[in-house]
């Protein structure tokens, strides 16, 4: 039964305990400023609401309930203790614009997270304000733009992006007014250095890379790439989506990157929330420090305070109305304190161990690896192009069948370069037990593909709905519920 909450509504029903008592509904406001109709919100009892949304929650997959090997998403355990401390009264009810004297608790946590992020990235400055990875990317590219303009170098109109890059990279570059030029990847999964050399010039503002790349392999010539870019007077941007692969092992600052963002909802285990919120702090090398987005926390002899536009006149400005996703910042800080120095070193180790183990098991079982000569980083790609040709089943079919076995599917069809691919990232918080179970299920599904392909083609079978018609959804847009009967306009004052 998937009734909409509006279908449970009954006129004049309400959750009485939640509605404030007011003596009368009189108001001095003139009629032309007032709303006359009733908006389409449910009229339900408190139990109806609680039951409806609790039941909805049970139609979701989640990290708490299923293994989620989504490549590039780092679906690791979201620690409960971290959630609890972020909800402590002093933090939860603190107004963002409260006086600094009343905010020392929050400011100290934010400051220390800034310092921890500097340490693990090898960078000189951090701003916690971007509210997601894409906003962090925006900040990074905007800082690159500001840097060149500050030096009167206005000919730099291009950003280089590998053809394997995540879509947010070119979208961000375009949002910042740059032209995007794609650099091809070679057969080993590395950026094509010769193509890069040919593409770089006085028009290059920067390059956006991630390392390990979206192909799941380490960009071995990164130092050479950094040299080429810097010699051309351009800057390097690091997309932090894959930081989990190298946390505590390698620092982007050491690789030569000038600016990067960190995905707190990936590497620092803050919850994904069904699509957000995230956190996309940016970290920069010395030369970009003046351009960091505001505000930033600083420490003085008298305590902690905010740095603003007045303190940093070259800042690219404010990205968030207040100071970013504060609650996410607190959770990331708490997680970093639980890991500590020792834990930081271990994240990449176990993430890489898990990925390579799963890779070995699948390779032995006959799956085709996209880059068979390379080590997996924290993730790896298998391609089903052979199975597609021989058995007429696609990566999509396999993904949907995995759902039947109570596993969330890996990332499909990304990166676009590898046909019929599945990008698999187990993360460090998963046990050998679940990795074996996952490998066994994939092997079983491959067998099904040969003997009962319709099981895949019509999957999923065991979920609240069967495979959904996305074409119909796009052709016949149904984006809001409209009640069958015409809503009569009630006069509210009656």
């Amino acid at each position, binding site marked *: 039964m*998937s009734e*909409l*909450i*509006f279908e449970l509504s009954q006129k004049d029903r*309400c*959750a009485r*305990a939640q*509605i404030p008592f007011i003596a009368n509904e009189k108001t001095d*406001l003139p009629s032309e400023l007032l709303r006359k109709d009733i*908006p389409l919100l*449910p009229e339900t009892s*408190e139990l109806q*609401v609680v039951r*409806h949304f609790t039941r*909805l*929650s049970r*139609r979701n*997959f*989640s990290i708490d309930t299923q293994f989620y090997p989504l490549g590039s998403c780092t679906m690791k355990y979201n*620690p409960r203790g971290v959630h609890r401390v972020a909800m*402590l009264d002093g933090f939860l*009810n603190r*107004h963002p*614009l409260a006086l600094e004297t009343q905010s020392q*608790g929050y400011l100290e946590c934010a400051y220390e997270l800034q310092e921890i992020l500097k340490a693990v990235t090898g960078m000189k400055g951090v701003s916690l304000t971007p509210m997601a*990875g894409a906003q962090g990317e925006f900040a990074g590219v905007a800082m690159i733009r500001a840097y060149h303009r500050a030096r009167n170098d206005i000919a730099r109109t291009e950003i280089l992006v590998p053809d394997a890059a995540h*879509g947010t990279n070119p*979208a961000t570059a*375009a949002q*910042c007014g740059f032209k995007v030029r794609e650099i091809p990847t070679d057969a080993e999964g590395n950026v094509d250095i010769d193509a890069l050399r040919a593409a770089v010039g006085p028009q290059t503002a920067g390059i956006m890379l991630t390392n390990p790349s979206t192909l799941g392999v380490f960009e071995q010539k990164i*130092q050479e790439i950094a040299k080429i870019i810097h010699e051309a007077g351009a800057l390097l941007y690091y997309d932090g989506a894959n930081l989990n692969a190298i946390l505590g092992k*390698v620092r982007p600052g050491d690789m030569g990157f000038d600016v990067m963002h960190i995905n707190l909802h990936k590497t620092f285990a803050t*919850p994904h*929330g*069904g*699509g957000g*919120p995230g956190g996309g702090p940016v970290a920069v090398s010395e030369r970009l420090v003046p351009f960091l987005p505001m505000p930033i926390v600083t420490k003085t002899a008298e305590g902690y305070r905010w740095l603003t536009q007045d303190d940093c006149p070259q800042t690219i*400005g404010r990205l*968030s*109305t*207040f100071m*970013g996703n504060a609650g996410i910042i607190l959770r990331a800080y*708490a997680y970093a304190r*639980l*890991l500590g120095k020792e834990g930081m070193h271990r994240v990449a180790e176990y993430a890489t*161990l898990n990925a390579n183990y799963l890779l070995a098991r699948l390779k032995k079982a006959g799956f085709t690896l996209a880059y068979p000569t*390379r*080590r997996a980083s924290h993730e790896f790609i298998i391609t089903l192009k052979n199975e597609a040709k021989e058995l007429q089943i696609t990566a999509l079919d396999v993904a949907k069948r995995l759902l039947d076995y109570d596993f*969330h*599917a890996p990332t499909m069809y990304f990166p676009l370069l590898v046909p019929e691919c599945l990008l698999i990232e187990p993360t460090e918080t998963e046990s*050998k037990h679940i990795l074996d179970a996952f490998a066994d299920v994939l092997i079983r599904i491959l067998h099904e593909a040969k003997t009962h392909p319709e099981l895949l083609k*019509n999957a*999923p079978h065991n*979920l609240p709905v069967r*495979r959904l*018609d996305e074409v119909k959804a*796009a052709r016949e847009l*149904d*984006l*809001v519920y409209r009640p069958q009967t015409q809503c009569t306009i009630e006069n509210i004052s009656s």
Partner: protein
Amino acid sequence: MPFIPHTEQEVKEMLAVIGATSVDQLFDEIPASLRVKDLPPVPPQLTEMELSRLMRARAAKDVSALNFMGAGAYEHHIPAAVWDITSRGEFMTAYTPYQAEASQGTLQLLYEYQTMIASLMSLDVSNASMYDGGSSLAEAILMAARTHRKNKTHRILMPATVHPLYRDVVKTIVSQQDIEIVEVPFDLNTGKITIDALEKISKENITALVIPQPNFFGMLEDVDTLTDWAHAHQALVIGLVNPLAMALLKPPGQWGKNGADIACGEGQPLGVPLASGGPYYGFLCCKQEYVRQLPGRIVGRTVDQQGKQGFVLTLQAREQHIRRAKATSNICTNQGLLVTASTIHMSLLGPKGLRKVALACHQNGCALKEKLNTVQGVRCVFPGYFFHEILVEFKKPVETILTELAQHHIQAGFSVKKYYPELGNALLICVTETKTPNDLDQFVSQLERACLN
């Protein structure tokens, strides 16, 4: 190590299957010169018990008793059920609903949210959220620029009565493209913008007019006249509104003869705690004809193979993961969990309950204004209709007022000096349904004391 389940024995077995002798060997593709040896500034690890103790001590420093600050973030009663349900692992630790069949909970909830917020704005469609109010305004402006094909360059009329921090965010985001923000000054007597002020501005290439309701000072703008003026000049209207207020006040879709084209703002007042500034969420709604220019995720209803109702992300071809450089926005992660809380909140309060909350805020605002008018050394700056925020001018420096009241655990308001020097020594004071008559009396008597000292 925290959250890592492996035993030594298991590590041995796994390495054997991989064919490596140590975990370290798995990093042999990384040049040795890049390998980090130590991370000195990172503090040693804590247990959850130690972490709790540390954070409790820090949180205790930030507790306040009575809060009269608004300025874009508002304290309201949030029913216990809202965050109880939102904190369920199935909502909190779910991923973006790309695998629709495994995410019907989140997707149906988002469809219900889209319905509620679009209706609250009296517009046709909504997306599934933006980061916050300020960035949703920036995205609304970018959307208006994309939609308004005729203009070669774009000028956006931005009243100075729009929240100054929102205007900062817009500047940061929009200045990377060829869009000019033109400030519309406000009338110092009324705290609102006027048609006269608009008429003084050049009409060339005006793409949109932003109309806040209520505005930053809590004043109610002449939304009908302003909307009609903008449309008469071929400009789009972007309504920047407080969603709670829209349960009581005329919503953007009903402004003027043809209604506003786009509505946006901060969703925090509906079920999201102050939480030190975030996470909040931005809402973005529009008329049907602009739906393809809406950035962000959108949920649609459809059927499955057996004709059963289901929900999917739709119109994805506009988004970054498909359209890349030509996407409507670079947004990927949004504020899904906050929308979850807001949807449950709106469901619990219902349309009449929400209206009562708005009325209670308004009535408290009027009551406070009356009391403030009796205090020596205090002047309510603007006459006219307002919603739950009042700009108050003091004879004494506002910094002193704020500090003195802070000592009594009262957050008196937000000083506007830095952003509106022309308004002098003024404080923006907010009062919501959470305050009792006793609270108001206590507040006013403390203000009186502070003014006299």
